[in-house]
């Protein structure tokens, strides 16, 4: 009898393990399918595959860099909606420094330093004054957007109605152009992802952050300080934002008030698309940002191609991608249903 019970419970554990692996691989499988569909559509329409793939990388890279750093914040069960504003502000300061010095290194260092400073201000103020993090980031969103807007308007190099700071010097444009390649961007992303994976998976930082996100009370009682790991999370997010801002400058060679305006919210979509719960905790994964970010951008591009002749297609694209987003989250969360409504 005992043996039968043991084998039954063993089967159940095995089944659960297989189910968990399938759910874990689902986002990656979805990315592969989306990529295959995208390539098929490009080839069927005789479009240039290389150019279109480059477009995908250019569109996704900033989102993926920012989202990868933001995983550390989301793991704690917290979130930062000022990431887009922080990207805009860092890019604004970065482009001013680049226009003045012509140094690529200074562009990257400035963007990272400004973004980390903004992130630190968020986390330090909230931990010193015991402020709720999300409200702090709401305030930061307004402040950073307004300051960046003022800087852009004052230093605008465009004569039109939309103020923007551009890199107009041809020598400086050549310098930016030299790094505006897919390989350079992929290298930046790979390096940052390796650092994040190392910190997240092979040091106590990641383990403790998952513990804090999963059960903050228990983690606190075992002596893990939320403030310290909160600051580390915001620093990592700041580095991602800084890299995203610098890469954005190398690609667009200009910064306007609309730069990265949707990044803050798209990060949520990317992370959830990548199979990570927004509540953080033990199921947090660094790769979720990369997989989810690329999936989201490829999906939007597929829909744009399919609906290219429809009036108001951008609206339809957004509706369909939102429905798919909700459907994917629904399927991915089937295993974690609770009796009462989630909050």
């Amino acid at each position, binding site marked *: 009898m005992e043996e039968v019970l043991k084998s039954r419970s063993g089967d159940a554990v095995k089944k659960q393990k297989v189910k968990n692996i399938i759910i874990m691989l689902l986002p990656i499988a979805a990315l592969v399918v989306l990529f295959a569909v995208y390539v098929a559509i490009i080839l069927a329409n005789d479009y240039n595959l290389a150019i279109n793939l480059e477009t995908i990388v250019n569109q996704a890279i900033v989102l993926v860099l920012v989202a990868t750093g933001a995983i550390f914040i989301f793991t704690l069960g917290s979130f930062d909606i000022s990431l887009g504003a922080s990207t805009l502000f860092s890019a604004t300061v970065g482009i001013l420094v680049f226009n003045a010095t012509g140094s690529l290194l200074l562009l990257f260092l400035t963007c990272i330093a400004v973004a980390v400073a903004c992130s630190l201000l968020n986390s330090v*103020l909230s931990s010193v004054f015991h402020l709720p993090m999300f409200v702090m980031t709401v305030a930061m969103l307004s402040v950073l957007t307004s300051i960046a807007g003022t800087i852009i308007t004052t230093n605008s190099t465009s004569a039109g109605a939309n103020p923007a700071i551009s890199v107009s010097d041809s020598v400086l444009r050549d310098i930016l152009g030299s790094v505006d390649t897919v390989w350079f961007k992929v290298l930046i992303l790979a390096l940052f992802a390796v650092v994040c994976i190392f910190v997240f998976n092979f040091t106590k930082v990641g383990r403790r952050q998952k513990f804090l996100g999963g059960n903050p009370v228990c983690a606190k009682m075992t002596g893990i300080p939320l403030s310290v790991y909160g600051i580390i999370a915001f620093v990592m997010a700041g580095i991602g934002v800084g890299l995203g801002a610098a890469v954005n400058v190398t690609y667009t060679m200009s910064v306007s008030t609309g730069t990265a305006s949707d990044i803050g*919210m798209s990060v*949520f979509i990317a992370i959830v698309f990548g199979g990570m719960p927004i509540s953080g905790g033990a199921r947090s994964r660094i790769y979720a940002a990369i997989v989810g970010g690329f999936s989201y951008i490829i999906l939007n591009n597929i829909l744009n191609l399919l609906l290219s002749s429809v009036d108001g297609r*951008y609206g339809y694209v957004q*509706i369909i991608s939102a429905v798919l987003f909700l459907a994917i989250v629904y399927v991915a*969360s089937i295993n974690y249903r*609770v009796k009462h409504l989630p*909050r």
Partner: protein
Amino acid sequence: MGNLINKHQLKNFGVRTAGTLAVPALFVVVIFIICAAQGVMVLTSSSLFADFVCYAAIVTLTTFALSINLGSGRFDFSLGSMATLSAVASAQLTYSMLGGGAGSGIVMLVFSVLIGAVAGAFSGGLYVILRIPPIITSLGVALIFEGITFVLTNGTYIMSEVQNDSMTLFRTQWYLPAVIILVALAAVYFLFDRTKFGYDYKALKEGQKVSINTGIREVPNAVWCYVICGALMGTVGFLQAARNTYISTNVLNFGSISVMFTAFLPMFIGGFIGRFSNDKVGYLLAGLSMSLLNSLFAQLSLIGIIDSSSRAIVEAVLLVLFLIFLNNEQTCRDLVTGRIFKKWAEAARERKAAKHSREDK
């Protein structure tokens, strides 16, 4: 004994009144000082006063809507998109029926409330069916509503549909938005403070599991909360259309979300006032205070002292300062009374004594 009770009641009444009026009074005093220093005046004409009431209505109703779900731990990013969608759909519907003629305003208001309520029901329905965290559902819903708004208008501005005499009344006659505020306040107060639905809502807010175990039905309660939020945001969409005389519909990629950020500061101020009286009254007083501040900003921008960027920074700083006060109230009180210095001195003495005792050992 009777005298004692009267004294106690009187003191209690005094504290409650002072607590309720403290923040609005502070706003009035500070604004009066700034006006005197800069040589400007606020609310000097009937049109400025009407704009003040209209903006107060927008802020108050958005704060009601935000606080309903946020108070229960349901973060709702779709509020702004509900307002825009209801305004656009109701404007198109009304214009197709009345062509901007007499009665357009009131008909559009009714349609806007109804469409908002339907949008809220859709949002709430999706949340209870999918059973995924409301923050994620609201992101999806916001994208869907923004997409529908774009499809309805192809991303262009809605102008002629809302520029008519009937709509102008809601912008120029102060009593119309004032009536909207009073009706909304009465409805929200009645629903949340005087009905079984409201009691259930409060019970679920304070203890979800215990409430469900005692037989309270969470699903219909949550859906009704979303319906009420939708109706409120529909009204906000209508008021914004009347005040701006156009509706901007190019709100794709979360362009509608900023609407909810305007309600954070009044929500926290309202919550603070609510400790002394009623939170709904608190939201109204906070809405009036924010609108007064908005009137001041408008006057200061006319003389070139402040622009929209500085204004956003001031509002964000006010939000942070108020939150610092709320979350460190005892420390602030000690700082004002000077008790904090005594505490520091005591702590220093204790440290010194502990050091001496360690050295003696």
